[in-house]
């Protein structure tokens, strides 16, 4: 277990912290939102220049081959500043789909483009209002030559509005117990229909309809008996990366709150001198420390794809959901009236956190999964 960062990782973390604080503080997200936009291409260009789009890509595909832990650290920093970028959807999850997949052709074709920041990917997994891959019914009908025809509907695809390619989870012939099929689909392909959806966090989501969309053999990232394991690992990685962003949101809103506690005066004292608030803040601090350990462990599990990854992922996502609920609610309550205004960032963290809570598994989903994986 790599619970302590390497010097390289620390350098990356510092660089990310500095760049984001400078180039994309929360104000930048506010400007995007005001403009009705969900993306800042110039920012992504700069992030790609720093190599962040290439962190999780092997050198032979023109990546930095730095691993998921490093990327997770960047996502945490991005979470702290509510950066709207394809970091999670493309650099972490999209790249992982290609890395794990069986199509060398897809890797050679897409990874260098992604590394260069020129191509965006989104993972289309959910079909219902709650995440649970078990309920996948999108049909992948074999076309007889190793490819498939896709039919079905995916909802609330994160990053789906701007993606150039979708990684689509389907089932062979759409049968409830059929093998998974993981297919790479061009956003402009015939039969793909996209509708943007606006959630409370003002990010990029889309619903996707697939109608007899042709997927060639080279675009099949996984199918047959090995698809189950690949898909599970991919979703575990997605859950862990999402937990990283939740942790970033929680950490920053906690730090903002502690600062407010020392500044705001009521009844002639800093409100942070009131013992009831002190104890609640101290408790939240403990929870954040515990969460950080779990997240570092999960990132290492994801980077090394070691046995126990599934358990580590469910642990990280469930605890991140729970802790962020606690911290964002306390942040608002401790800020008092000002905490519910749009002027303060606290509300923005809360809105982002509530959406992330639902992405790749809510708390009760991961509790059940953790219990099942533990054998009880």
């Amino acid at each position, binding site marked *: 277990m790599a619970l302590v960062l390497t010097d390289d990782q620390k350098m990356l973390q510092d660089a990310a912290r500095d760049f984001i604080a400078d180039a994309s503080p929360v104000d930048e997200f506010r400007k995007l939102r005001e403009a009705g936009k969900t993306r800042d291409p110039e920012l992504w260009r700069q992030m790609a220049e720093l190599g962040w789009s290439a962190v999780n890509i092997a050198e032979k595909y023109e990546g930095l081959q730095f691993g998921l832990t490093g990327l997770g650290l960047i996502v945490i920093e991005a979470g702290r500043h509510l950066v709207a970028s394809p970091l999670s959807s493309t650099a972490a999850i999209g790249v992982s789909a290609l890395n794990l997949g069986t199509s060398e052709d897809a890797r050679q074709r897409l990874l260098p483009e992604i590394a260069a920041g020129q191509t965006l990917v989104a993972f289309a997994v*959910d079909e*219902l*209002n*709650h995440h649970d891959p078990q309920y996948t019914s999108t049909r992948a009908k074999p076309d007889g030559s190793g490819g498939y025809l896709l039919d079905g509907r995916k*909802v*609330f695809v994160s990053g789906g509005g701007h993606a150039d390619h979708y990684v689509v989870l389907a089932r062979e012939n759409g049968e409830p117990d059929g093998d998974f099929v993981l297919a790479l689909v061009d956003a402009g392909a015939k039969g793909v229909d996209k*509708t943007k*959806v*606006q*959630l*409370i*966090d*003002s990010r990029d989501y889309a*619903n996707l309809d697939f109608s007899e969309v042709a997927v060639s053999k080279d675009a099949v990232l996984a199918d047959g008996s090995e698809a189950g394991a690949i898909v599970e690992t991919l979703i575990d990685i997605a859950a862990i990366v999402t937990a990283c962003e939740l942790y970033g949101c929680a950490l920053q809103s906690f730090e903002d709150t502690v600062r407010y506690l020392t500044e705001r*005066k*009521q*009844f*002639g004292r800093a409100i942070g001198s*009131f*013992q*009831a*608030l002190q104890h609640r803040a101290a408790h939240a601090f403990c929870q954040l420390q515990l969460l950080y350990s779990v997240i570092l462990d999960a990132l290492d599990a994801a980077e090394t794809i070691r046995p126990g990854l599934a358990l580590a992922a469910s642990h990280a996502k469930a605890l991140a959901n729970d802790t962020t*609920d606690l911290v964002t*609610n306390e942040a*608002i*309550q401790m800020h*008092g*009236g000002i*905490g*519910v*205004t*749009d*002027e303060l960032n606290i*509300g*923005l963290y*809360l*809105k982002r956190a*509530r*959406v992330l809570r*639902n992405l790749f598994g*809510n*708390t*009760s*989903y991961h*509790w*059940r999964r953790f219990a099942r994986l533990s054998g009880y």
Partner: protein
Amino acid sequence: MSELDAFREDTRQWLEANCPESMRTVGRREDMVAPGRNQKFPSDDARIWFERMRDKGWTCPEFPSEYGGGGLDAAKAKVLRQEMQRLKCRAPLSDLGISMLGPALLEFGSEAQKAEHIPRIVRGEIRWCQGYSEPGAGSDLASVQCRAEDKGDHYLVNGTKIWTSFATESDWIFCLVRTDPDAPKRDGISFLLIDMETPGISIAPIQLISGDSEFCQVFFEDVKVPKKNMVYEANKGWTVAKGLLKHERKMISELSQDFIGGTLTLRQAADEYLGYDKNGKLKEPGLRAAITRHEMNMRAIELTAYRAHLEGLAGEPDSRIPLIMKYVSTTEFQVKDELMTELLGYRGLGWDDAYFSEEELKSSRSLLFNKSLTIAGGTNEVQLNIIAKRALDLPES
């Protein structure tokens, strides 16, 4: 038949004859009838219902009839409430003038003030808003900074008030102002009535995380207020304010869930968005347990409110119960919102989009808006302080 029974009989008949059918259903937020110089009605029935009740003085049943009120004693007023509940009649008019300022004026106001303001409240001619909080004085209400200088024939008001609901649509505001900057905190405060059309007043709406902006910040710049508009005595405004605060907390804890949240119940949401396993149990056992806990708490809160009501009627009110109601009910409303969001999944996270149903959008707005319930009108922390002190007699911290 006793006089009270006769009154009940008459009232029932009158309500049945006069309350329009459409006014006999639970209203939503937007169905409320507000008063004011530019009063508008959500429907014709709402207008008719208002006018009929107004003409009997039953917009304010317990206000004295000499000021246009219903003039009912407590027993009769209770009968009227019971009969209105029986028919599910909506309130004909809602305003801070009725629920907060009116009672305070009747207790502390001068004869001239009562004669000027009470009839207009009863008739719905004036919409009132409240100027209590300031940017630097939230929980610590007594640290009022907004100044009112005595200029002989008028007060000169300078400063700002925040969290004033619907200030842009209101005609008058009642304010706490500092008239003696040298006195200890609570001793230099006065209670002032100010016409919102007075020169020097400006209003900035506050945008909330839910997107709503019913709260405003009100700025006073050299606003001249006639001396006759001071209620009670100079520097004794805290006495008036304390009485009002109690009314406000009661109001917030009594806000019904239908009003605050969307119109979906958790049960309906569970039916529609989650579903059941083959034994008829909610699909997610964790959510099932959480909903059970919430439903138990809500039932306990309702039984407690009802117990307090009955204890009051029996002439044995337990003064500790009202202290706890705001804390327990607002806390539980927020639990409901979070559970609803979990049940609805992505559909409970919509912003402003044709893709989501009206109920779904209400649910996500409610999640966000209701975070203020445990803050407005006395934060949870202030409420717990009060319980510790008044119900448990614990020493000052």
